[in-house]
């Protein structure tokens, strides 16, 4: 008997311990808003009048996705609203279950970042039925008109590609030899970035694309493919990588070949390591900002919760970042 009671007690202690530190158990310092309202049984806007936002994140094991969550939490704390974050673990059914729970929790607005394609739509419909505004952020936008959502907020990948092309053409003096490192060929982001980049760069007949290969978004494959390209081409002026990881790999390959002085590297995504390279070395020339911060999404969610009219599509700025303005973007504490 005694043992059973102690096991039961262990369960209870565990539960109480866990509920006691709920919300605050996140990143200390960034979830104050979440933890202060904890335990007061805040329900939506009732009680202390605080807005509660639900954020269903698709996965939480990738730096970009973690940065989404951290910035959302920080924005919520700064703006004095509570935010509840759930992790879909890459599974459409978990995501749906999470969104249902958030609806049941009666949140004032929902932010959803999903990679589940059509499978997530029943949850979107359920949010509409419950009358909860839906902000789709950094994920696919429904192509079906019958799917309800309040607003869609993300960077425009095509524009990002155009900007990179313009920058490169300008710095090359509209002529020279260019190497392109694409992402995973079948990925939507890679296709959209190419769709923006290629027509723009083809306006300059004197810019010759001497190699176009896939670096699979990753550092090591990019380094290997760049090594081969370097051996095959004695004259390269510029390398354009579709993300920073691949640019960092390409730089390693170029350094090994001792050709860093003749080749300029340009990329996209603006992750911290790339910004450090731009700031402290001459190895990476420029990267295009890919907005990983969820501050705008949180602000839109608050506006929607307050019943304000908001735009159906919000395109985030994606400026080019090079030595001239890197200090405005570099944050040593950023997670991405």
């Amino acid at each position, binding site marked *: 008997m005694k*043992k*059973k009671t102690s096991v039961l007690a262990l369960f209870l202690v565990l539960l109480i311990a866990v509920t006691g530190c709920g919300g605050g158990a996140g990143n200390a310092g960034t979830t104050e808003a979440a933890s202060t309202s904890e335990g007061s*049984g805040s329900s939506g806007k009732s009680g202390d009048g605080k807005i509660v936002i639900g954020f269903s994140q698709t996965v939480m094991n990738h730096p970009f996705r973690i940065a989404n969550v951290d910035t959302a939490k920080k924005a919520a704390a700064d703006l004095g609203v509570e935010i509840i974050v759930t992790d879909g*673990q890459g*599974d459409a059914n978990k995501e749906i279950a999470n969104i249902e*729970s958030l609806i*049941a*929790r*009666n949140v004032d607005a929902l932010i959803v970042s999903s990679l589940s394609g059509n*499978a997530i739509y029943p949850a979107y419909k359920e949010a509409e039925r419950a009358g909860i505004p839906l902000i789709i952020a950094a994920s696919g936008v429904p192509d079906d008109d019958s799917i309800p959502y309040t607003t869609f907020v993300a960077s425009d990948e095509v524009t990002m590609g155009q900007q990179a092309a313009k920058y490169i053409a300008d710095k090359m003096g509209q002529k020279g030899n260019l190497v392109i490192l694409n992402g995973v060929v079948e990925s939507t982001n890679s296709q959209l970035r190419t769709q923006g980049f290629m027509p723009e760069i083809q306006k300059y007949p004197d810019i010759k694309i001497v190699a176009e290969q896939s670096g699979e978004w990753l550092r090591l494959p990019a380094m290997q493919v760049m090594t081969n390209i370097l051996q095959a081409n004695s004259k390269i002026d510029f390398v354009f990588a579709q993300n920073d990881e691949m640019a960092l790999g390409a730089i390693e390959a170029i350094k090994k070949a001792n050709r860093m002085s003749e080749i300029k590297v340009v990329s996209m995504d603006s992750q911290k390591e790339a910004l450090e390279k731009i700031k402290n070395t001459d190895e990476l020339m420029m990267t295009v900002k890919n907005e990983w911060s969820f501050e705008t999404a949180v602000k839109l969610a608050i506006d929607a919760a307050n019943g304000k009219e908001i735009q159906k599509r919000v395109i985030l700025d994606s400026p080019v970042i090079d030595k001239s303005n890197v200090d405005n973007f570099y944050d040593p504490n950023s997670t991405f």
Partner: protein
Amino acid sequence: METIQKARTLLKQEETLLLLFIVIVTLISPIFSPEFFTSYNFSNLLRQISYPAIVSIGMLLTVLIGGIDLSVGSVMQAVSLTAIMLVQLQAPTGVIVIVVLALGLFLGLMNGMLITFGKLQPFIVTLGTKVIIDGTTLFMTKGKGISGDASDSFLSIGGGYMGAIPNPVIIMLVLYIIGFILLNKTIFGRQIYSVGSNRVAAYNSGINVKKVQLSVYALSGLFAAIAGLLIASRTGAYQPMSGNSGATGMELSAIAAVVVGGASLSGGKGTIWGAFLGALLAGLLFNLLVFLNMNPYIQQFILGIIILAAVIFSASKNRK
């Protein structure tokens, strides 16, 4: 005196303690979040647990005969994919249901035949079939999700309601009643327990052990297929899962449910009632954590602790 005695035996069972724990958790939850106690949330919670709970019935059967079925999540995936492919071909709903349930039975039966006639370990066989099925579904879809223009009758299987209760919940309850009768009121049920407790004795007493084993794995495939069909018809789309998450993690949810519910992985011990409570507890915690605004990473930690606690409790009882 007799009632006290009865109450004592009852209290010694994992199932009772589990139920007690669930009741306590449910009762104290509204203190933290009043919205927890709403009919919307309860129907939502029951629907969320219906898929793993249904799979757990089949898992319980395999565990009861001392086996295991690691392929259930993959069977669900294969079934979802087949259902949506048939939707794209505009097959009638009745045909889709029959085809996918047959597919589940067939895949389960394959497991059973390999284990029985190949005299192989269930763990390795079902791990192998799991990987084969995963590879096949990924190959067929090239890793991309598919969706079709599903008919309303198809979507209503998993997405519809009977009164205020979601269909998957009704189906789950019916299957549990069937499972209860099967295990407790039929000869087949008694045979399952005998095979699990002592295979040799079961064989010597004239039980067709091979037949029991084949039926159990076929049924496990069938229950997984029902869950897969419900998910496909809920979403009207098929989404391949990468890595170890998703329906491919269903085997772990189901094993956890039956073990937390008091079943022994060495066979012969466990109840259907416990499997249900195990699935309910996992779903309840998962749901509750949203209401408590808890860090998502902690959810898995807590579930792990509960599984371990259940096993420790069960082991300490058996040593007495």
